[in-house]
């Protein structure tokens, strides 16, 4: 599923040579001399932070999933997203000479650019699936179009990501159907989860002045809404779920206004790194 960690090259030589670094960044990031402009870097932060925050949430499921197959599946999705986050944050960092880890571990909350939907807690499995269903469908539409970006690095990252996100979309779709049409309890939980997450959908598709400055490079969020609605409609119809009506959260993640959840998430993620400034791991 993920190329971020390449395990295939490892031979069984249990008692021999041990010092190997098996994880490398994707080739386009190492070879390309490309340095992001400040606006492109800001846009890469938007997307990178979404992937990072969501991956961090999914990582917390591993060893706690409802069945072993889901420990593996949610782990796979999380790993793919960490891969996307690393590529995007690495690229964002080229503008200010910072590394992916400088950006992940040494920024505080107001400097994060994540959407509120990815910050929403795991909740029960239905909440995780509802969040995943919404975000994966959005990311699929986004990366499908970002492949054609005039920025070669963003286009390369998107070309790889879109294949992985396609699987994430399928995984969450299957679970939406199972939970909505499984038992009375699972249906009740699926309906609750969808209505808890829906207020955060609107923010995903909101435009920002940054997008106007990145014509041909960034994907205009509002332009994705029709495709998103068209993709989820048949799934919701088959699941006999209605689109929830009610609150629309004000959002603001792209300008550094975050939900109450993000600070806790960052505190946990950054605790060890920040206890050892300057250390390498």
């Amino acid at each position, binding site marked *: 599923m993920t190329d971020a960690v390449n395990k295939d090259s490892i031979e*069984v030589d249990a008692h021999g040579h041990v*010092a190997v670094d098996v994880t490398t960044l994707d080739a386009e990031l190492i070879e390309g001399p490309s340095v992001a402009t400040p606006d492109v870097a800001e846009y890469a932060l938007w997307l990178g932070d979404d992937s990072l925050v969501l991956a961090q949430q999914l990582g917390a499921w*591993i060893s706690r999933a409802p069945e072993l197959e889901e420990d593996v599946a949610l782990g796979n999705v999380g790993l793919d997203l960490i891969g996307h986050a690393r590529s995007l944050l690495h690229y964002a960092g080229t503008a200010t000479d910072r590394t992916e880890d400088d950006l992940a571990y040494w920024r505080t909350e107001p400097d994060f650019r994540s959407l509120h939907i990815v910050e929403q807690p795991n909740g029960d499995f239905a909440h995780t699936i509802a969040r995943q269903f919404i975000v994966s469908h959005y990311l699929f539409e986004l990366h499908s179009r970002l492949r054609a970006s005039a920025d070669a690095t963003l286009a390369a990252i998107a070309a790889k990501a879109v294949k992985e996100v396609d699987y994430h979309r399928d995984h969450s779709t299957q679970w939406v159907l199972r939970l909505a049409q499984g038992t009375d309890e699972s249906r009740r939980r699926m309906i609750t989860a969808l209505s808890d997450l829906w207020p955060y959908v609107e923010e995903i598709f909101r435009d920002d002045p940054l997008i106007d400055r990145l014509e041909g490079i960034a994907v205009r969020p509002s332009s994705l809404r029709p495709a998103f609605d068209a993709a989820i409609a048949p799934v919701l119809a088959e699941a006999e779920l209605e689109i929830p009506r009610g609150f629309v959260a004000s959002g603001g993640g792209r300008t550094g206004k975050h939900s109450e959840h993000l600070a806790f998430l960052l505190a946990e993620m950054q605790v060890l790194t920040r206890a050892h400034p300057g250390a390498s791991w």
Partner: protein
Amino acid sequence: MTSTITPDTSAPVAISVEEQQFNDLIEADSRIEPRDWMPEGYRKSLVRQISQHAHSEIIGMQPESNWITRAPSLKRKAILMAKVQDEAGHGLYLYSAAQTLGATRDDMTDALIAGKARYSSIFNYPTPSWADMGSIGWLVDGAAICNQVPLCRASYGPYGRAMVRICKEESFHQRQGFEILLELMQGTEEQRQMAQDSVNRWYWPALMMFGPPDDDSPNSAQSMAWKIKRHSNDELRQRFVNMLVPQAAVLGVTLPDPDLHFNEETQQWDLGEIDWTEFHEVLAGRGPNNAQRLQRRRDAHDEGAWVREAAAAYAHKQSARTEEMAAK
């Protein structure tokens, strides 16, 4: 298979055609496959060993998953997620291998969460520091590899084949552990202390993973005769220590055994006395984290029950719908 006689394993005299075939396969170092006849004791012994191994992979996810959300770099986070996810995968292949012997996953899971099944007691130790991700890889996975490489040749086919795949991944796990410690040992004073402290805590428990000394290992002799197991506990432990000593020197860590010395005569590293009282205490459920590990597994199982029920109900409805369509 020509004979239909049910073999009576308690009969001391003539052995059946099937049993002779089984013995010949073992003798010829061939593989026994699920449909072959096998003595009940062989089947039981394998189910016990394979399910314990599967449980160990599953419980073994916990001490490491503790650090996924706090991994100190994104690269480390990705590697650790991949590793813990591999362990879930290993658990899955092993449960499948045990299922070919007639065990069911539900029964095995129930035995685990009821506290009736054993798993490797090493996972009852806590992981208070990041360096423990290094020590688990280097020492615990290292010990596991020494135990498991010979199992790739185990006489039971599905087990041997599962072990080939598992060993490849364990080798990657051991390397990443070594690399974590190497990075720490080349880091700040605090990082070096973190690494040494962790090695001090994991070294002896890792040596105990090979099981009790040969003269005190009740199941070993039969398992070796059946070629499920190929080397004795003490032999494997010795091989492991011989491998560790030069690696510890590369890392710059001390192994916490003041009596460890090179024996010119045997060309091996002689180790000090192992404290088997601690081993038996942890095995008896009085280790630091036994209760916590089982509780977490039970919670995941209980909290996930509604999800599994939903999936089963949905699959049932789907197949009923397909049948209905076919009938029309």
